[in-house]
């Protein structure tokens, strides 16, 4: 049974099979060299950012500053998660900022001004997002309207609606004692919950990893080997434990970021392990091939746009709870570009068919670290915009170069 040559997927002698930890490392290096960068840009980016900003201002790496950073990252991160969905199809949504602003205005008007229960107001805002997304999908499907034009029109229209809603007052303050504002400003996981959250992923990884391995062995397929699994899980757990320990030196891990992470995990599962997710990648890779396989390309598009705008709306609610207000400035400025840049920096391709939900989380930490560091240096927003713009440009260049390299190495 364990004889490698007998296994179904090990019959071809031309293929090098990487066994064990050394093999896994070698495969990783091969992938990176052929342009499959994975998490590499994020890690390099974070190291550079940490070194630069902590030498300029040591407060940058202080635990409480990092806690604030995570608080700030959750809203943009959720918006960026939606962007991943549309980018996977090779589409774009430029109205996410306006959508998040409109959604915060909706919550303010419905909840604070009209007295609708808070939960209902939040649901209403997310529903409004879903409807806007469906409209974009409809325009794309029926009129073949390029999504960047449709959503550019949406950017202005939604901003107009936001201003209209807030018109008389200009901004609405959310009550400080409410659960929503507490969630966005002070709710922190108890230490034991945060440590549990750090250990759980590794444990689950080993549990499901061993289960899959057993099934593969039963089916006469090769598997990566226990040493690799344990090494990966060990590294992950050690890393997470260190992060949580460090954050707990300050205030601790924000619930807001925890909830955002749960959304990332849910979308990651949906993209990698369900038929819907497979169809998303197929439509992004080759829409005509997907159609001929019997996939309803139109429905997939509708779902992606609806999900994107809904997540943008929820991100708007998070942002409002963070600022304890719904204002005319919400969702304007660099929100759009930050969310798109986060997805691209995290490794989701602008050209469609490549990416993952985790790219939103990793990318948003990079983007938020830059923004946080620049704020600590007391730089005006003019400089911050310029630097964020440059970072987005670099991320897109890296994406394009990696794509070209992958094409040369015979990888999609």
């Amino acid at each position, binding site marked *: 049974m364990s004889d490698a040559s007998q296994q179904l997927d090990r019959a071809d002698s031309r293929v090098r099979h990487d066994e064990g930890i050394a093999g896994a490392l070698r495969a990783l290096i091969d992938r990176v060299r052929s342009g499959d960068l994975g998490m590499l840009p994020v890690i390099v980016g974070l190291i550079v950012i940490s070194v630069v900003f902590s030498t300029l201002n040591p407060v940058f790496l202080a635990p409480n500053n990092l806690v604030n950073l995570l608080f700030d990252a959750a809203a943009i991160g959720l918006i960026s998660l939606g962007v991943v969905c549309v980018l996977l199809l090779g589409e774009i949504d430029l109205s996410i900022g306006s959508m998040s602003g409109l959604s915060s205005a909706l919550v303010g008007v419905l909840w604070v001004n009209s007295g609708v229960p808070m939960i209902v107001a939040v649901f209403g805002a997310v529903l409004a997002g879903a409807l806007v997304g469906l409209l974009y999908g409809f325009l794309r499907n029926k009129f073949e309207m390029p999504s960047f034009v449709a959503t550019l029109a949406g950017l202005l229209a939604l901003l107009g609606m936001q201003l209209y809603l807030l018109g008389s007052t200009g901004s609405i303050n959310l009550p400080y004692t409410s659960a929503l504002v507490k969630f966005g400003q002070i709710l922190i996981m108890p230490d034991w919950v945060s440590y549990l959250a750090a250990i759980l992923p590794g444990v689950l990884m080993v549990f499901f990893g061993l289960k899959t391995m057993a099934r593969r062995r039963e089916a006469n397929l090769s598997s990566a080997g226990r040493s690799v699994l344990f090494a990966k899980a060990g590294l992950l757990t050690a890393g997470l434990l260190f992060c949580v320990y460090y954050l707990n030196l300050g205030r601790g891990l924000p619930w807001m970021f925890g909830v955002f992470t749960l959304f990332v995990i849910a979308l990651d599962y949906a993209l990698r392990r369900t038929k819907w997710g497979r169809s998303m*990648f*197929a439509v992004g890779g*080759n829409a005509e091939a*997907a159609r*001929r396989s019997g996939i309803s390309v139109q429905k997939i598009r509708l779902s992606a746009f609806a999900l994107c705008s809904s997540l943008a709306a929820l991100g708007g609610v998070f942002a409002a709870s963070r600022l304890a207000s719904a204002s005319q400035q919400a969702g304007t400025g660099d929100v759009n570009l930050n969310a798109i840049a986060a997805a691209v920096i995290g490794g989701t391709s602008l050209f469609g068919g490549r990416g993952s939900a985790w790219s939103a989380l990793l990318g948003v930490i990079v983007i938020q670290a830059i923004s946080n560091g620049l704020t600590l240096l007391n730089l005006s927003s003019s400089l911050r915009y310029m630097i964020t713009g440059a970072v987005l440009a670099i991320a897109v260049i890296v994406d394009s170069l990696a794509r070209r390299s992958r094409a040369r190495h015979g990888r999609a």
Partner: protein
Amino acid sequence: MNKGDLILKLRGVSKQFGAVTALQDIELDVHAGEVVALVGDNGAGKSTLIKVLAGVHQPTAGTIEWCGQPVSLDSPGTALELGIATVFQDLALCENLDVVSNLFLGHEIDPWALDEVQMEVRAWTLLQELAARIPSVREPIASLSGGQRQTVAIARSLLLDPKIIMLDEPTAALGVAQTAEVLNLIERVRDRGHGVILISHNMEDVRAVADRIVVLRLGQNNGVFTNETSHQELVAAITGAAENSVSKRMARKQEEASA
């Protein structure tokens, strides 16, 4: 479904692209356990006809009967559900997905928790049946050669156990051994009682496996032949004249040989 039963019946099928009539009044019958070859020159409408049957294009006129029932093939999904599987000339594979994902695209096992192990096992079994040489089913299609992609496309058409398989130039990109494998496969599929529609420019392949040879010319039927028909007759039907560039070339060669 017994051998010889009529599965697919086309009457008066036409397809227009704007001012261009790609197909006009096409008649075609496909029976269970029969290989029908569709031959014709470039632009004769073979691929268009295949795409109409695959639900990719909708005909502008005419009727399509499936097992005696009139059907409308309004989407590729409908055609697949009825049991019409197609290997397109451009293969229609997603380069960013691996072999397993491509084979099962649109028909994944367990839609809410994809069963990767079972899909991978079936992928290997299917590819071994085709004597395919695919190094790894977990590599993206982009890393495969033309012939390997062709095999993946053929394997995918067999996955759903269809009643009719349509192959558009299936051997164009294949090596000697694999061409023979595909021809064997076509016969195996036929012997299982399925209908096969084969498009090929290679008359040798066509004669080797076809029970009937349907000739299209300029978007119209131009006769039905058997594999006993002489090469000249077939070429004449395809080009539309006994006096054509192929026969002229043959005559010239013969003259040169005798001179």
